[in-house]
């Protein structure tokens, strides 16, 4: 990792080959999209916003991916244990992540390069292919999909009796696999249509989550005063528990996989210089807002129910959902809750499968061809998570991957910061904003803190 040292001219961006998946988008479609962006830039804010929502996509894919079993469990636990008090952590953590996502957008729209290839060239294979591609994204997609399968099949099993039939996990995993595989395999197929199908599916699922969790909250009721205080007045549990919660939450909202997925999903759409405003809008309204709103809703539902009941709470998502359901009242409201909750592991499986396949191809220098058997094999690798129906996750592997992530996410963050500020990489399009850099560096400090607390824990230096 050498960073930039001299001011040699940047690579001629127009000479860079297009990302192969973007070949699915015809030049005529891309030109029509750019023309529409030009039209939208001169229209009213409302019309522009609607147009951008329609044209956006990678941000929604990222939101639906990052809103997984782990994130939602953390929100449920937070609401059940601390009520509304930790709401502020949600927007602060995602807000910090936005700075890094904007860097990914810059690499896509102005750089036009493939992130992992560029990391390999400037910061070495260990940072690019290994830390970012194979382990930071590929391995995470495969190993952490066990959790999505476990949650998804449990939810289907719990939902079925409310609809009048039994559907045990040992059978319903087939449905989970069929839905997620079908959506995932469509990416990059039939011109732009496959990509639009995946993006529309993610948008629909996010809408379902917002609508259903919103209805549940209306039934539960809101303590508006406590909610506003929780959203804007920082509070943490006393002592080391508070520090652990802050460090883990603030640095973990979005990570390497999300940065990679957004960068490559933008490349796959053929985004260029004129798409940067759309990309930023997509980050704010496709990723930031849905992520914050859905987590707010979940925290608030649990704050208004299990937190009021008090006592000790279960710790797994399935048990938490089971404990909440009777408190929601009528059966239809429980059905709504389970449907919204089911959308969480389904979309995360789809997003992680795509991110994993993209990263594995990049790390190993394979050209992604979405109609090849190699692509299909890679994109379906996370489906091995169906084994979660019978076996627990391989704990040693989860611990190993989690440890690796703790120790390497910050290095990948360093790499992003250096690429963004490197004249040789981005030329005149490099970062010229003090605030943007400061935001990225703040996130890097938190990622450093995650790595350090892991090391300190191992050395016995951390407080327990």
């Amino acid at each position, binding site marked *: 990792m050498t960073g930039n*040292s001299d001011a040699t001219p940047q690579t001629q961006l127009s000479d860079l080959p297009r990302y192969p998946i973007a070949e699915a988008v015809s030049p005529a479609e891309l030109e029509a999209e750019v023309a529409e962006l030009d039209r939208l830039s001169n229209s009213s804010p409302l019309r522009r916003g609607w147009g951008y929502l329609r044209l956006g996509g990678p941000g929604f894919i990222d939101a639906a991916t990052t809103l997984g079993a782990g994130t939602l469990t953390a929100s449920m636990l937070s609401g059940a244990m601390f009520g509304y008090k930790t709401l502020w952590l949600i927007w602060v953590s995602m807000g910090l992540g936005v700075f890094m996502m904007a860097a990914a957008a810059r690499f896509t729209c102005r750089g036009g390069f493939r992130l992992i290839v560029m990391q390999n060239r400037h910061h070495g294979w260990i940072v690019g292919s290994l830390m970012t591609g194979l382990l930071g994204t590929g391995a995470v997609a495969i190993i952490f999909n066990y959790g999505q399968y476990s949650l998804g099949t449990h939810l289907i099993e719990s939902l079925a009796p409310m609809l009048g039939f039994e559907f045990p996990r040992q059978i319903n995993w087939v449905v989970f696999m069929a839905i997620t595989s079908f959506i995932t395999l469509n990416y990059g197929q039939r011109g732009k249509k496959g990509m639009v199908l995946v993006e529309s599916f993610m948008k629909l699922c996010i809408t379902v989550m917002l609508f259903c969790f919103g209805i549940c909250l209306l039934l539960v009721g809101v303590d508006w005063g406590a909610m506003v205080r929780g959203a804007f007045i920082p509070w943490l549990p006393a002592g080391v528990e508070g520090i652990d919660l802050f460090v883990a939450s603030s640095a973990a909202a979005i990570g390497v996989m999300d940065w990679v997925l957004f960068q490559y999903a933008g490349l796959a759409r053929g985004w260029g210089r004129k798409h940067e405003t759309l990309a930023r809008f997509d980050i704010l309204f496709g990723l930031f807002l849905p992520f914050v709103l859905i987590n707010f809703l979940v925290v608030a539902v649990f704050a208004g129910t299990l937190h009021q009941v008090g006592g000790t709470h279960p710790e797994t998502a399935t048990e938490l959902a089971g404990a909440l359901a009777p408190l929601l009242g009528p059966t239809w409201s429980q059905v709504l809750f389970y449907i919204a909750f089911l959308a969480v592991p389904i979309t995360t499986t789809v997003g992680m499968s795509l991110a994993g396949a993209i990263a594995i191809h990049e790390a190993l220098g394979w050209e992604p061809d979405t109609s090849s058997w190699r692509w299909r094999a890679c994109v379906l690798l996370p489906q091995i998570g169906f084994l979660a129906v019978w076996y627990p996750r391989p704990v040693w592997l989860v611990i190993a991957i989690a440890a690796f992530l703790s120790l390497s996410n910050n290095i990948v963050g360093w790499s992003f910061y250096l690429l963004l500020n490197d004249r040789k990489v981005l030329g005149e399009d490099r970062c010229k904003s003090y605030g943007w850099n400061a935001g990225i560096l703040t996130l890097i400090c938190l990622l*450093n803190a995650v790595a350090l607390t892991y090391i*300190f824990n191992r050395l016995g230096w951390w407080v327990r």
Partner: protein
Amino acid sequence: MIDIDSRYGPFSGRVWGLVINFGANALALYGLAGFLRDGTHLVHLTVGPIVTVACVLLLARPSS
């Protein structure tokens, strides 16, 4: 003023800055752990955050 985009030995100033910042983060956390445990390590707890803030302020400067 230091030019953080110039090379100093094997790395550019920005890379050195990130390394120093990491050390400062470690110092701050080490001090925090000690302070929470038995009220000691005040020097680490003071120096770590100050150097961290200085690094962030310096490294946030865009390259000219």
